[in-house]
Structure formats: structure tokens, C-alpha cells
């Protein structure tokens, strides 16, 4: 931990334990992390993400008790869960909608980091761990969507696994390894189930590292300046734990609305049609959270380069700490960069729309323009802006940012 320990063991047992395994100290210090007092509600999404990670793991473990990873039984076993297992329909809806809400939360979380420059030194490791987590989340989401073995499961899996065949020399071998054969079939389903169970556990480990890294460097904040004064920070518990809990319940209410009242809104009706290798659906679309990258893939005329650009679009995010050359973190003080940032958000949303449309005519042209923006934002706009921009004056401290200059003087 980056701050001094605040724990003093009181009872004999606590002292005894503290000398052997200071686990209570760990927990107490963890909860006492000095946290900038000016955090806004965008900082509650890390906790919200943890909530969804737990929801996915718990509901997933129970679903796996009833699910059968077999070509001819998978679809029916999911229906069995929904129809016959006690609380089964609720668990299944929680898990499928939980995935979507996990992604809504993670997109907010990532954009928060991009807006307030949270990736900048000394938080590079925290950021890179975040990108790894995001990639693992995408893998889990993709693998999970295959399991109910509906039409979109099968054909989505076919399209995505086929991407790997574009890799020169080894592509064919990789694809066959993923499939366990020469097409998506029983071996694929079986190994995807195994990997889908494994992935969140790895994810969990990385989240542990992520939070560890957070506790080493501390939270950034909306003004993007480090903690200087004693009044700048407050202990995490109970100031921020209660704020997080409140935000979590609000977000959970939206989630619950979907789980209980529109559980199929985010899904595709074709996935209620049993997988059939003989019938290709007219439009194969991945889950909504992949759509921007799907649009980038299809914007590039060459298959191999399409795949490269798609993966690069994600990988480039990991290099943000070095691509953004600005010494000021928060966009609050970077008016020009702020414009580009919102342009980037709009680009992501529009690419999502284009990913759901057929890849033809004007849609492809629009996708290309937006793909260009995506990359130029990272490799041209952010490096150049850092050198050329005129930033607003930063407040002297977090407390000053909160109270204003005059109040600071009066206080003294």
C-alpha cells in the first residue's frame, strides 16, 4: 500500500494474527486508501464493474450446473434452465443481460479514463492491465454467446474464428485448433465451454492486479492533479464506499429493468433458432459490444489487413500513455483536445451503428472515414495536441479546485 498503515490490532487474537498473517491490516488499509475528495460519479464505475464481475461468475457457475455443451442438447439445455430449473429464467436473464451491462459499464469506465487522462504517469500499468481485462472480457463475451447454440451463436463463431485464417502461414492451423476440426461443431462447442469457464477466473486475477496497481498509485481525479494537501483526500471508507454503493444500486436498477422487463432487448431473435450449419442467416451480426470493431474489420477491403486493423484498433488503446504527449491530464483544462475526444466518442457510436448494417455502398465509405478518425485520434491528434495545445491554468490543489481560490485564502 502506498500510504501509512492505519491499523492497530486491539485484541490478543488480532495481534497474534497480525504477526503471522496481516490480513486484517491488509483489509483495513485497503478500505482506508486516501482518495481525492473531488471524485465525481464517473469514478463509481470501477465498483460497478466489480459488482457485474461477481454477478457473472455466480450466475455462470449455477448455469453451468445445468448446461450441456453438446451440439444436439445445448439449445434445449438452456431452454430447460429457463423453463424447469428453479429461478432458472432469472439466472439466465441475469447472465445474458449482465454481459451487456458489464460492457456498458466498461465503456463508461474506459472513456472516463480517456477523458480525465487517468492513463498518464504513474498509472500506465493500471491502464495496461485495464486493456488486458477488456480483451479478456471480449473473449469471455464471444465464447459465452456461442454456448446457447442458436443460429447467431454458430454463425457468429464461424465468422470470428474464420478471421484467424487470414494470418499468413499459421492461420489455417490456428483456425483448425480453435474448431477442433474443419468447421465449427461439437469439439468447438465443448472447448468454448471450457474456455468460457476459465476466462472469468483469469479475469478475476487480472482485476486483482488492477486494483493492486490502483492502490499503489492512488486514484486520479476530475482535475487531474495529484494529492498535495492533507485536505485533498478522504479515506475510501466510508466516504467513497457509500457513494459507490449508492451509484451501484442506481445502475443495478437499470439492469434489473432489463432483466425482468425486457430480457431479450439486447439479444437477436435468430438466436432462438437452433444452430443449423445448412442455413446461413441473411445478416450475421455479433453482439452489440463488438460492433465498432466489426465495422472496422469490414471497412478494409483486404481480409488480412482488416483483421490487423481490427486488432490494432484495440491494441492502440494500450499505448495511450505514450501517445498522449500532454502534460496536463484532465480534458477539463484541454479545450481543444476535449473536442477531439467527443469526436472520438461519436466515432465509436457511429461505427457501432455501421457494424450492424450490411457492408455495402455508402456504409463502407462511412466506415472507412470513421476508421481513419479512430486511428488518427491516437497517432496524430493526441501527440500533436500535447505539444501545441494551450491549456487552461490548473488549480493549485484539489482543495482549491473544490473550494475556489478565495475560500482557500480565507481559510488560511
Amino acid at each position, binding site marked *: 500500500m502506498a500510504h501509512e498503515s492505519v491499523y492497530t490490532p486491539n485484541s490478543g487474537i488480532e495481534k497474534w494474527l497480525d504477526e503471522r498473517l496481516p490480513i486484517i491490516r491488509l483489509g483495513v488499509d485497503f478500505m482506508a486508501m486516501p482518495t481525492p*475528495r*473531488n*471524485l465525481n460519479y464517473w469514478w463509481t464505475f470501477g465498483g460497478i464493474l466489480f459488482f457485474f464481475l461477481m454477478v457473472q461468475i455466480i450466475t455462470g457457475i449455477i448455469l453451468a450446473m445445468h448446461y450441456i455443451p453438446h451440439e444436439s442438447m445445448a439449445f*434445449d439445455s438452456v*431452454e430447460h434452465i*429457463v*423453463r424447469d430449473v428453479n429461478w432458472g*429464467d*432469472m439466472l439466465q*436473464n441475469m447472465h445474458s443481460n449482465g454481459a451487456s451491462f458489464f460492457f456498458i459499464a466498461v465503456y463508461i469506465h474506459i472513456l472516463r479514463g480517456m477523458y480525465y487522462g487517468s492513463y498518464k504517469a504513474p498509472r500506465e500499468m493500471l491502464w495496461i492491465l485495464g486493456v488486458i481485462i477488456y480483451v479478456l472480457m471480449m473473449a469471455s463475451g464471444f465464447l459465452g454467446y456461442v454456448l446457447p447454440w442458436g443460429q447467431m451463436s454458430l454463425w457468429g463463431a464461424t465468422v470470428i474464428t474464420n478471421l484467424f485464417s487470414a494470418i499468413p502461414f499459421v492461420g489455417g492451423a490456428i483456425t483448425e485448433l480453435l474448431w477442433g476440426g474443419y468447421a465449427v461443431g461439437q469439439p468447438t462447442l465443448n472447448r468454448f465451454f471450457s474456455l468460457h469457464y476459465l476466462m472469468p477466473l483469469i479475469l478475476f486475477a487480472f482485476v486483482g492486479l488492477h486494483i493492486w496497481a490502483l492502490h499503489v498509485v492512488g486514484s486520479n481525479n476530475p482535475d487531474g492533479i495529484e494529492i498535495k494537501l492533507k485536505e485533498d483526500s*478522504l479515506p475510501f471508507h466510508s*466516504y467513497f464506499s*457509500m457513494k459507490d*454503493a*449508492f451509484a451501484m*444500486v*442506481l445502475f*443495478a*436498477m437499470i439492469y*434489473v*429493468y432489463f432483466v*425482468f*422487463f*425486457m*430480457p431479450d*432487448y439486447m439479444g*437477436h*431473435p*435468430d438466436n*432462438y433458432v437452433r444452430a443449423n450449419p445448412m442455413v446461413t*442467416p*441473411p*445478416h450475421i451480426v455479433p453482439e452489440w459490444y463488438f460492433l465498432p470493431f466489426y465495422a472496422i474489420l469490414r471497412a478494409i477491403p483486404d481480409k488480412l489487413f482488416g483483421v490487423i486493423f481490427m486488432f490494432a484498433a484495440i491494441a492502440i488503446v494500450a499505448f495511450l500513455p505514450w501517445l498522449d504527449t500532454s502534460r496536463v491530464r484532465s480534458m477539463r483544462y484541454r479545450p*481543444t483536445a476535449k*473536442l*477531439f475526444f467527443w*469526436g472520438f466518442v*461519436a*466515432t465509436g457510436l*457511429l461505427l457501432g*451503428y*455501421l457494424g*450492424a*448494417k*450490411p457492408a455495402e*455502398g*455508402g*456504409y463502407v*465509405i*462511412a466506415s472507412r*472515414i*470513421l476508421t*481513419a*478518425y479512430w486511428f488518427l485520434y491516437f497517432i496524430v*491528434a493526441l501527440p*500533436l495536441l500535447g505539444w*501545441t*495545445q*494551450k491549456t487552461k491554468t490548473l488549480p493549485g490543489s484539489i482543495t482549491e479546485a*473544490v473550494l475556489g481560490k478565495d475560500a482557500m485564502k480565507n481559510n488560511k
Partner: protein
Amino acid sequence: MTVKFFKLASGFVAFTAGLGMLSSVVMAAGDGGGQHFAKQSWSFGGVFGRYDQKQLRRGFEVYKGVCTGCHSMNLLSYRNLTQPGGPEYGEDYIKAMLKSDEVEVNLPHNDEGEIVNEDGDLFTRPAALSDRIKKPYANDKAAMAANGGALPPDFSVIGKARAMHANHEGIPGLFTWVFALVKDVVTQYQEGGPDYIYTLMTNYHETVPENAPKDFSLPEGKHYNAAFPGHAISMAPPLSDGIVDYTDGTKATLDQHAKDISAFLMWAAEPHLNARKRRGFMVLIYLAILSLLLYGVKRKIWEDVKH
């Protein structure tokens, strides 16, 4: 130099964003094709929506009287018809029905490990409540052979496997799409399946109508249906006025039949809808109260801290 860069940069942002928008708008305008069908009002729509038990019974009568000749319902058992939140028939009623219809099932009643007697015939026994609803054809091949090569889809989840908008048409232009997405959340629209089935049932044309797509020609043995993707459907119009007599005395019109069977198929796909919505409402109330309490706690804690 800096100022120049700003101008260039903002120009670039405006340009790309504008172009992206523009192309989407242009494409949206070209999207007008395809007929629009009215949404129906369903008793099970909305937060307080519940199935109308009488309607489900009428729907079952339509299924039993007409559709069961071709469409299976493999995931449902007879006992489901007696469960709460469904047609809620009495067990005795269903047992009597099975008896009078002389429904027989094979032993064991799965497709693979069938047991045969010395003559190589299947053992059969009268159907019980725990048996799956008997399918009309022994297998898909037989079903296709009897239907001119087209497979009548299983009805277990068809209420969710089709949707009026998403149905094979892709999604509309950007602004209509965003508008529809938001509107569906606010109005809690989840009835695309029954809306589609109702529309399918009520949009047959005896001859190819004038507003059919250009150069449309109806293949032999197919029927023109305005709601079906591609419009040429292998299923002859299954419903007509008075095709089944309702036991509850409701007037037997095509429209009534179509609504009732659609509601019934929604129930078949989503048998726990009533319980789900009831539960959801309670969870929401609980969380609403919890959020108020937490807000109070949070405010109290932060009382003396400006932030």
C-alpha cells in the same frame, strides 16, 4: 503556428463527423422500403402486463384445432398447460383430453433409444401429463416431405425467434434506428414476436397484390404473404373465420384466432412471464427504497465536506 493547427484540427473534426453523419442520413433516406405493420396491444405488454388466461385457452384451442397438424412443440409437456401463469387447465381436464383424443406415445419417447417388441414395432402407451406434446411428424424429413419440401418450424420458442422489425430486414437508417431503440426501451416493447405472428396470419393475399416487389413471381405451391420475408411462403393460409369454435363463446373471426394463437405462442416461448414481471416489480421497489436509504447515508457522511 498553434492557432493554425487548431483551426485545421477543428476543421478536421467537423469534417469527418459531418461526413459520417451525412452519409448515414442519406442512407437512412433510402431505407424506406418494406411495409410497415401496426403493433397490436397485448395483455402481457408493459410492467404490469400479464397473460390473459382465457385468451391462452382460446389460443390453445386454435393450436390444437389447426396448427398441431404440422407444427410440433417439442419443449412443452402436457403438464405445462396446467401450470400457473399459463392456460391453467385442471389436470383432470388435460387427462380427459388425452384420453378422448387417444394420444399415444412411444416408449421410451425419445428419438434415439427406442424400444421395440418382437415384431419390431414400437411399444406405445397412452400419453400422461409428464409427456412432451406429441409431434405431428416422426421427424423433420417426414415433415418436409408432407409440406412440399418446407419445414414447419417447431413452436416451442417461435414467439421469441421472430420479431416484426428485426425480422431478416436488418436495421433502418441511423436516426429512425436510434429513435426506435430508445422508444422500445421507454415503452418496454418486447412483443415483436407475437406482433409478427399476428401479422403473418392476417396478411395473406389470394393473388399477388399490386404493391408486391417489382418482378415478383409466385413459385408453384407457394402463397403470397405480405409479412413473410420474401413474401412467398409454403404454408397455406392456416386460419379463416370460424375455423375453430371457441368453448368460451367468443366470436370466431380470423382476427380473433390470429391474436389468440399469437398470445399462446408467446406464452409457450416465455411460460414464466407473469412470475418474472411480478418478481421484477418487487426487486425494483426494493432497490428504490435501498437507494433512498443509501443516498441518505451518503449525504450524512458527506455533510461537512465540500466536494
